C-alpha cells in the first residue's frame, strides 16, 4: 500500500492504495463515484471509461500509479442534473437509454471524440464507438443523441 494522489473532476484526493490497483476501484469504491462501472474488467466493453488528458481510457485496466497527478474526468464531471453537458442533455432528449448501465462509457467516449472533432460524421462517430457495447441495443437513439450533441457543441 502507498499514498496515491488522484485528481478527479477538479478535486484532489489522497488515497492509501496498492499502486497496481486499477483506477476503477479507486473511483467507484474509495471515492464512491457512480459513473464509472465494472462491466468486464478486461477493457472490452467501455463501462469503466474515464477521460484522462483528453483520451477516453478504460479505468478497469489502468493501474492508479499510471494516472497519478493527471486530471481525471468521470461522468459526474461533465455536468449535473441541473446543468447537464450537451451530451447528457441530448441523451435525455432522444430518450437514448434502456437499462443505462453502458451510458458512462458511451457518453464519455463520445465526449472525447467530439472534443477533438465536433463535426464528426456519422461514420466517424460509429468508428469512435467501435469498442463500446450496449447490450440493450439502444444504438440508433444513442448515435442520434451523439450527433445532436455534436451539433450543439460545434455552435
Amino acid at each position, binding site marked *: *500500500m502507498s499514498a496515491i494522489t488522484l485528481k478527479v473532476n477538479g478535486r484532489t484526493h489522497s488515497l492509501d492504495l*496498492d499502486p497496481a*490497483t*486499477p483506477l476503477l*476501484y479507486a473511483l*467507484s*469504491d474509495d471515492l*464512491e*463515484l*457512480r*459513473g464509472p*462501472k*465494472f*462491466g*468486464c*474488467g*478486461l477493457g*472490452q*466493453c467501455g*463501462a469503466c471509461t474515464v477521460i484522462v488528458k483528453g483520451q477516453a481510457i478504460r479505468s478497469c485496466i489502468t493501474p492508479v500509479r499510471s494516472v497519478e497527478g493527471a486530471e481525471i474526468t468521470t*461522468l*459526474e464531471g*461533465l*455536468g*449535473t*442534473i441541473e446543468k*447537464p453537458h450537451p*451530451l*447528457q442533455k441530448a*441523451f*435525455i432528449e432522444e*430518450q437514448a*437509454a*434502456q*437499462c*443505462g*448501465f*453502458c*451510458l458512462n462509457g*458511451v*457518453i464519455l467516449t463520445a465526449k472525447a471524440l467530439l472534443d477533438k472533432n465536433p463535426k464528426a460524421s*456519422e*461514420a466517424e462517430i*460509429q*468508428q469512435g*464507438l*467501435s*469498442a*463500446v*457495447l*450496449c*447490450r*440493450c*441495443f*439502444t*444504438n*440508433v*437513439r*444513442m*448515435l442520434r443523441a451523439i450527433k445532436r450533441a455534436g451539433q450543439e457543441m460545434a455552435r
Partner: protein
Amino acid sequence: MSKPVMTPDARAALRGAGFSRRGFLKTSGALIVGFSLRTAQAQFGGGPSAGSPAAGQVDSWIAIAADGSVTAYSGKEELGQGIATAQQQLVAEELSVPFNRVTLLYCDTAMTPDQAYTAGSQSHPANFNRGNLAQAGATAREALFRMASERLGAPVDQLAAADGVIRVKSDASKKVTYGQLVGGKKFSLALDSNAKRKHPREWTVLGKPVTRPDLAPLVAGQFEFVHNVRLPGMLHGRVVRPPSVGATVGSVDESSVKDLPGLVKVVVKKNFVGVVAQKPWQAIQAANKLKVTWTAGTGLPGHADFYDHLRNQKQTRDALMVDSKDVGQKLAEAATVVKSTYYHPYQMHGSMGSSCAVADVQGDKATIWSPTQGVWYQKSTAAMVLGLKPENLRVIFRRGSGCYGLNGADTVTYDAAVLSQAVGKPVRVQLSRKDEMAWENYGNAFVMDERAGLDAKGNIIAWEHEAWTPALGNRPGPGTPGNVITGSLLGFPADPFTPRAATEPRAFNNGSNGVPSYVAGGVGGQSHGTGTVKSERVLVHNVPSPFWTGPLRSPARLQNTFAHEGFMDELAARVKADPVAYRLNHLKDPRLIDVVKEAAKAANWETRPSPRPGNRPTGIAAGRGIACVLYEGDNGYSALVAEVEVNQDTGKVTVKRFVVCNDVGPVSNPDGLRNQIEGGALQGMSRALLEEVTWDDQKVTSFDWRTYRTLPLGFEPPKIETVLLDRPDEEATGAGETSITVAAAAIGNAIFDATGARLRQIPFTPDRVKAALAARA
C-alpha cells in the same frame, strides 16, 4: 360472453405451471380455474407472501399524503424496459393527477404487493388491465369521488377531477383536494372489480411519450445501481468457481492466501468457494491466488455434433401441443412434401455489467439488495441457502445491468448472502466477466424438424413440427435455489428432470410458440390458433442439458418462430408465391393479418416470389424478408420486414432496414414501446448474426467479449421504422419480446431473397452463409 375472472398474477402462476392464459380464458370455467390456481399456488407459491401487503387492498398499492402527493407500490420492477415510467403514468391517469406527483416504489418484500416475477412480458398485461395497480387506481379514484360527494353535497356524476382536486362541475369554487379528503389516512378498501378504468380515449397522461424520470440521474452518473449500494462496514466478496463443469472441491489451501492484505475470510461450503476482503481488488487477488484442488469434471458432449446428441437422447420429457391425428395420412396424400431442420445454439444473456448483489446477514435476520427478477422467490430461496426463516429476510430490488432474463442476478445474490453470513458483516459481490458468462443459465439450444404437405394448388394441407431442447435448472422458484450454479454448489438440487411420454393435449398452450401461426390450433374440438391448416402436430422433447438453462428474452418463442417463419418462407418459395400473400392465405386471426399487412405496406413490399429475380450469384446482392408472430399465442402481435445486403464473396450480411409493425393493445407509452421494439430488433440481429455459446470437452470457452461476439455500438445500424397499431378497446399485452422474436427469421428470409441460399442455423456467420451459398441449386 363473460370471461372467468383471473388476476394477472394468477395467469403468471399458471403460465409458470405450463398453462396458457388464452387457453384458460377460452376453455375453462371458473371452477377449473380455481382448482388449477390452487394447484399452481401449491406448486409455485403464487399468492400472498409473508410480510407483503395484501394484493386485494387499495392501501397496498396507493397512498395519498396530506400534501396530495401519491405513492404507488408495484410488484413489477424497472429493468430498463421502461415499465416504471408507464406505471407512473397509469397511476397519474387513473387518479387524475400530474405525472410528477406520483412516486413509484417497486419490488421490496417488506413494502410492495407480491407479483411473483417481472418477466415473460407480463408486466403490461398484469398491471394495465382489470386488476392490480390499474384497478387499485380506479378504485381509489371512485372512493375519492364518493368522499368528495359527501363533503361538497353534490352527486358523484356532478363532479370532475383534475390535478388532484375534485370540483363541482357547475360551480368550480366548490372543491376539495385529495389531500383534504384522505391525506395520510388509509382507504381501508378492497379492490373493486367494478371500478371503472379510464378508457384509452379519455387518456391525458397514458398513451403519451413521457421523459423517463431515471434518465437525468443516469446520464449524470448519479443513479444508484445495485453495484453502487454501499453500507457502513461493507466488505467485498469474490467467488471461486470450478474450472470445469461438474468438478467438485477436493481441498482448499487457505495458507496460499494468508499473507494477502485485506483478506478477511476464506469461505468453503460443500462445493461453494469464496473469499471476503476489505476491498474489491483485494478480494480479486485472493480469489485468483487461492489454491483449490478440484476433482476432474464430468466431461461435455462434443460441440460440433451437439445437435445430433440432442436428437439421440433416450431419456426425454415429451409434450404434445396439438395433434389432429391425421398428419401422416395428409402427408401421404399431399402433392408435395417439404422437410427442413432448423438449429439454434445456446445463447447468453451476456449482461453488460456482470451481476452484483449486497447482503447484510446479522444473526437470524438478513437484508438483501438484489437485481433479481423475483424478489419474493429470492427471499424464500435465500432463506433456504442461509438456513433462516423466510419471514426474517427482506429482499429489496435494485436495478442491475440489463438482464434480458435469468442472468447471474439470482446466483450472485446467494453468493453475497452466504459470504455475509460467514463474516457477520455486509458483503458486496460482483462476479467476474468469466464467472458471469461461463456459468449463467443460457437460453436454450434447439433442433427443430419442420414438415409440411402441399396440395396441387400449393396450399398447405398439413404441418408437423418436432423439436428437441435441453434444460437444466431455471429461475429459482419456491424451494429451488439449486436451479442456478451457486445453489447447486451449496448442495441444493435443480428442478428434477423426469422423463415422460407425451399425453393428449387437454388445453391449447402456445406459450412457447411451438405451434406455427398458420395452423388451426385444434384442441378439444375447438380451434385456438391463428391459422387455417387443420392437419397439425407439434411435439417437443425436453432432454437433459450439460449447462444451466433459463429464460432468455423470448425463450423458446424465438427459436420456434425462427424455424416456423423460415420454413413458411421455404413453402412460399417452393410454390413460387409471394411470402406476404402466402402467409395471409393461411392466416385467420385479423390482428395478425393486420400487422403483416401494415408492415408490408410501410416497407413498400414488392409483391413477388423469392428469390429476387435478376440478382447475380456473386458480389453484393440485396433482398427482403418478412416474419410474424402472435407472441406466446396471446401476448402481442408483431411483423417485421428486414432488408439486407449479402456479400456473396465474403459471406458478410449487412442489415439495411427493419420495418416493424406491433399491436400490443392500447399503447401506454408510444416512445417507450418504440424503444423496446428498436432494441429488440437489434438484439435479435446480434443473436442471429453472431451469438453462440461454445465449449470444449470440459468447460465453456465463450466467457468474455472476444470469445462471445456481440454487435458493438460501432456499426452502421439498419434504419428502423416502427408502426404502432393502437387498439384502445383491446386488453394490454406484452411488448418487450415481440420484435426480437421475428428478427432472425426475417433476416434469414431476406438472405434467401437476395441469394437463393437458405440459412437454417443460427448464427448466420460468414462461413455458414458461404456454405449455404455453395449449396445453392
